[in-house]
């Protein structure tokens, strides 16, 4: 559905994205992750034909986004970041206008507008001015707009930003449902969302793709590099000093809760140090109340990849 080859975009000589290469297959939900300023919006704008790349090529549904931009645009539904809308129009009026603009046949406009209003829960605000809508509803109008012409592909730039937890859940469910018929590329900061909805994830950092895999595989790569949490009364011992001597322990951070000391251990990947810690605790007669291996989340993957240079 999407094919990107050596895509580069420079703003005034400063590269925003460099040599991106990826593909999104039909029916996939691809998550696009990265810190602010990593180049997510730039990439999505290029894919939506809003601006041309400096070099490289991108095709959407087989159409080049630059040379055949009109056909490419006809095949995709794009929801921009922050969802700019004409605030002087009413919801139904706006959707009618967008449907005509996107070439939905005359006799199908009413049906399509009705369908997307139903799907996105806009029935109760259909006659309201867009200016009077809350952030959540504006977001839904943007999503409804993207769906109007039944595109094969949806590109959603931060669809859940600025929503409350309930609304996020609703939008997430909506996206999951849409994923049954559409190919979706969505960008987000909210990592649990990606774990729950996406079939594959691209992590982009400083304009380059750092990882591209399924969420499970990404977690698999980092799971062993998680951490161990130990809560114990160590008496006269320092605690951290002894723990650091265990092979496989990279770093120990100490916190305290009254008499209890809380040790967060970062361990090398592949190492399981819990048994060693237990042995240490029994020989030194520490009283232990918790010893757990912390499972890595996508957040750890994200932090590890995007902060690799600061560690």
């Amino acid at each position: 559905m999407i094919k990107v080859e050596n895509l580069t975009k420079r703003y005034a000589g400063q590269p925003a994205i460099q040599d991106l290469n990826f593909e999104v297959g039909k029916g996939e939900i691809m998550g696009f992750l990265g810190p602010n300023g990593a180049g997510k919006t730039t990439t999505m704008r290029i894919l939506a034909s809003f601006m041309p790349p400096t070099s490289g090529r991108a095709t959407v549904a087989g159409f080049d986004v630059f040379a055949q931009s009109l056909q490419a645009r006809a095949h995709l539904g794009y929801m921009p970041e922050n969802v700019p809308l004409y605030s002087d129009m009413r919801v139904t009026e706006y959707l009618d206008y967008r449907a005509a603009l996107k070439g939905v046949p005359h006799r199908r406009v009413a049906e399509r507008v009705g369908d997307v209003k139903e799907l996105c829960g806009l029935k109760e605000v259909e006659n309201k001015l867009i200016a009077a809508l809350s952030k959540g509803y504006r977001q839904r109008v943007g999503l409804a707009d993207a769906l109007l012409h039944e595109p094969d592909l949806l590109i959603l730039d931060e669809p859940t930003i600025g929503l409350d937890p309930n609304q996020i859940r609703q939008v997430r469910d909506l996206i999951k449902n849409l994923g049954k018929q559409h190919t979706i590329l969505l960008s987000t900061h909210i990592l649990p969302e990606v774990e729950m909805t996406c079939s594959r994830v691209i992590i982009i950092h400083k304009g380059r793709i750092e990882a591209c895999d399924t969420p499970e595989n990404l977690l698999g790569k980092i799971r062993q590099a998680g951490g161990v949490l130990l809560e114990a009364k160590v008496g006269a011992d320092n605690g951290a000093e002894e723990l650091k001597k265990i092979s496989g322990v990279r770093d120990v951070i100490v916190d305290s809760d009254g008499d209890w000391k809380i040790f967060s251990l970062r361990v090398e990947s592949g190492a399981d140090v819990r048994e060693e810690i237990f042995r240490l605790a029994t020989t030194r007669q520490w009283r232990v109340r918790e010893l757990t291996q912390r499972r890595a989340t996508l957040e750890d993957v994200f932090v590890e990849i995007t902060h690799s240079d600061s560690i």
Partner: protein
Amino acid sequence: MRKFYTLLSREVRSYFHSPIAYVVLIFFLLIAGVDFYFQVSFMNQRQVQYTVQEAFFNSVFFWFAFVLIFPLITMRLFAEEFKLGTIEPLMTAPVRDWQVVLSKFFGALIFYIILWIPPAFYFVIFQYVAGQPAAHSAGAYSGSYLMLLLLGMFYLSIGCLASVLTKNQIIAAIISFCAITLLFFLGLVQFILLDVSSAARDLLGYFSAIEHMGTFSRGVIDTRPIVFYLSMTVVMLALTHQAFQSRKWRL
């Protein structure tokens, strides 16, 4: 064609959704009304060599209001879309750049034409009340309205170009106001600088909106200004289209 019509109808509607349309309408009708009243009362007191209709379209009042309305009509066209970011959903829909540019231009033109409908009734009312025609021939009406249309197209296209250059409406208004005022005064140079050669004077005469309006409102249809204004409008719209496209590369 349907997409162009959809865009155009949104443009026209958006004028009437915003308070600007009503402010411009009221401001313009107020000045046009006062202008008409003054011309009629002036003629009531002395013998003159021209008709009410001619006087109306050639007064200082008329030109003052005329130069001011174009920046007000055109400043928001592109600048507002850039500022609010609505250009992004607009240009990621399958529409061509020229469809957007032309729909904005013709939307402004339709609003401008609507602006000129009420003053047309002044002449009808005058004829009804005074029992004599406001102009010496039907050609004088069509001539002055044709000139209004031509001047309107040219000045609106300048406004479009100014608006596509910036995302600040005020800056767009200042650019188009300056450009239109300078062009307008170019036609007055021949009255101000008496020592310019006759060739230069003739040349400047071609730019003179006042002179064109003078001849057209007498019912004399000269083809030179028609060609001049139409071709300049096309040039301005082509530049607008070019600037609009180049924005993508500068983003």
